[in-house]
């Protein structure tokens, strides 16, 4: 019986690998408002659609504005702060596995963070950094009616700080 189960599990794993797109999973240990359980992909996309249209700027990220839990998400928050934009919505994908996977198919973008302006996907961390450096971000924000405190393209300066690389080797799969 165990052998049969293992074979089925392997097959299930292969299907997911071949599709290149993981099956949407509802995880009951998710907590907080907006937990998606047993929702179809289109239900989740509808939910995401509402969220991206709720505010001018919406960031899907790991962690919160106050406590980002990923360097890439943190970089996006810091860029908006530099522009004096504090009033933006965030969705913590670590609190909602359905959204975490669904946002990737919604925007056809495989990574997080993801930034939406006026309901339109404008990019992830790399693009935000590049737009910030070229001055395009300030311009884009102004076009959307959001005042940016940075008027000119910033000088060639890094948007991120260097820190000592972590030496911990904790097994994250625990």
């Amino acid at each position, binding site marked *: 019986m165990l052998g049969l*189960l*293992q074979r*089925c*599990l*392997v097959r*299930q*794993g*292969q*299907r*997911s*690998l071949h599709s*290149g*797109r*993981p*099956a949407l*999973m509802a*995880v*009951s*240990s998710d907590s907080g408002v907006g937990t998606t359980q047993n929702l179809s992909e289109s239900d989740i996309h509808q939910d995401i659609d509402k969220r991206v249209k709720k505010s001018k700027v919406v960031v899907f990220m*790991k*962690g919160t504005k106050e406590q*980002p*839990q*990923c*360097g*890439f*998400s*943190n*970089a996006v928050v810091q860029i908006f702060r530099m522009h004096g934009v504090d009033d933006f919505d965030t969705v913590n994908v*670590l609190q909602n596995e359905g959204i975490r*996977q669904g946002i990737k198919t919604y925007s*056809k*973008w*495989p*990574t997080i963070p993801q930034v939406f302006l006026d309901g339109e*996907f*404008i*990019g*992830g*961390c*790399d*693009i935000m950094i*590049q*737009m910030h*450096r070229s001055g395009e971000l300030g311009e884009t924000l102004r076009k959307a009616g959001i005042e940016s405190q940075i008027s000119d393209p910033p000088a*060639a300066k*890094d948007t*991120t*700080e*260097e*820190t000592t*690389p*972590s030496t*911990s*080797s*904790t*097994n*994250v*799969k*625990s």
Partner: protein
Amino acid sequence: MCSLLRNFILLTTRLGWRSNASFAIRGTKMCSTADTSGIDVQGLMTDKLTRQFSPAKLDVINESYMHNVPKGAQSHFKVIVVSDFFKGQSLINRHKAVQETIKDEIANMIHAISIVAKTPEEWEKTNPGSLKSPACMGGMKAEAAQKA
């Protein structure tokens, strides 16, 4: 039977049953990265990007050491692709072209990717210091703790 199996997978992964189930973890994407030991992820991505973009410059850099992951991990990568292919293309389309080329690796093998996609002319004017990746915030460890 299918739903029974699905529940079984959910249950075992939720309970942290790991001893004999690395394939289940990979299949269900409960964890962000699969076990890629024995796979040369860097080489795979290098080959695919070379074939697709005939790049003037290509760097596939394993930045996993900068993150909270085991030694030798292949979880965090930066790819720098300099190619005429990107001429006249928006940032989003450039990144999507790169993502599409290595979509299997992104979906199934690695946790994070940073992409730099420039034309040779743009690359001439690029200050390498500007390409530094964001500092780690301990994300993978935090995620694991949250899921435990």
